[in-house]
């Protein structure tokens, strides 16, 4: 895995946690705040945070068009929580943002903060991990190329589409690096 350089979108949210996980996986992690910084990275993580905050800054500073172009050229992108919302082609209430993945996502789907939770998940090809869900979204439906990797309590919480990955939960808030390693291998 050495020699890979993976970007973490650092507009708002838990980007430092992802950076730390990537470093533990033995790859270089770089914070991305401007469109030109997207050149020369082997993959991009869109972290958890507030999707409206990240989405608005992404648009205002021209990162959205560059991310869409690079993803279409095959750059791997992984969105956690807010990142999942930003990758979806459809949202339940708002206008979608990057429209890259064939899925419809429901925001704040489990309720408010008092309904946030931890649980054990069983993920296809990866196995059991701890899932931390914070005001989390889930996927209402997928179509086309999207493949469901994890269902919890009848809700879709992890989807892969080619080199694009989306999780409702936050592996960066646990000590388990399995999903980060899975993503690094895609890059």
């Amino acid at each position: 895995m050495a020699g890979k350089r993976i970007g973490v979108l650092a507009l708002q949210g838990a980007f430092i946690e992802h950076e730390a996980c990537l470093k533990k996986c033995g790859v270089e992690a770089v914070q991305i705040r401007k469109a030109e910084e997207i050149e020369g990275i082997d993959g991009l993580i869109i972290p958890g945070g507030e999707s409206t905050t990240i989405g608005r800054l992404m648009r205002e500073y021209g990162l959205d068009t560059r991310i869409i172009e690079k993803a279409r050229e095959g750059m791997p992108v992984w969105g956690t929580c807010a990142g999942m919302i930003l990758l979806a082609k459809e949202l339940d209430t708002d206008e979608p943002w990057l429209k890259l993945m064939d899925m419809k996502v429901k925001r704040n789907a489990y309720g408010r903060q008092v309904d946030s939770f931890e649980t054990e998940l069983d993920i296809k090809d990866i196995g059991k991990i701890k899932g931390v869900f914070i005001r989390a979204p889930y996927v209402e439906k997928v179509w086309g190329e999207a493949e469901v990797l994890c269902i919890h309590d009848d809700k879709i919480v992890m989807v892969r589409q080619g080199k694009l990955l989306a999780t409702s939960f936050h592996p960066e808030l646990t000590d388990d690096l399995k999903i980060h390693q899975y993503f690094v291998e895609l890059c």
Partner: protein
Amino acid sequence: MIEKGTFTVKAGLAQMLKGGVIMDVTTPEQAKIAEKAGACAVMALERVPADIRAAGGIARMADPAVIKRIMDAVTIPVMAKCRIGHFVEAQILEALGVDYIDESEVLTPADDKYHVNKHMFKVPFVCGARNLGEALRRIGEGAAMIRTKGEPGTGNVVEAVRHIRQVNDEIRWVCNLPDDELMTAAKELQAPYELVVEVKRLGRLPVVNFAAGGIATPADAALMMQLGCDGIFVGSGIFKSGDPMKRARAIVAATTYYNDPQVLAEISEDLGEPMVGIDISTIRPEERMQDRGW
């Protein structure tokens, strides 16, 4: 097995708020402006700190109807304040379903000796601190997020700067101590020993630390971020200014691009009138909000 209200989940929401701006709002319309400007959360209040300061008297938890209307207006997290030590106000806020409770010195304390036992709640708490000992006592009581106290409602950043510098200074001191001096350090700081050990291990506070109390401009926000804060609370600074939408957007951008003076220069242009500030030396000692908290 699903576990709710764990410390991971409580501190986790604060981690998701990092690099963002939490704005004080008093109406659903203001909440929508804040959300549209890119706020990562709003604080639902009846009055902003500048008006609380001007009104005097006893400041209490907001009317639940005000909080509910704001919760209905936006999809971002909604916080609300309870008085220091007023655990029933906290119970009411939890029952309303707010996403975070600020046990805040902006309101008149309900207990002159004890804070709320925040471990008893599923909803997470943020508390103010002027120094490392105060921050660790609040974390010991269960706070999942810390903020500087500053001096609320003044539009004067000097106290917030003093508080973050104090906390950083004491963290550096703890990190340089040999392990066998940590118990005496805990005694001097009036902080739980285990948390002092944790600070030395991490080289920082064990939870997210935001700036609050006097931030009025994009440059103020960037200053606090460069001094090491994880994000920004803006109380009176936005809706007491001439053009709230423009100022709110600029402070959001400044919190992301805090290390980029070129961007900061661009977003600081033509923001209109900032809120009128107050010199700290003109505030009578009994009116200083930062001295509330034990």
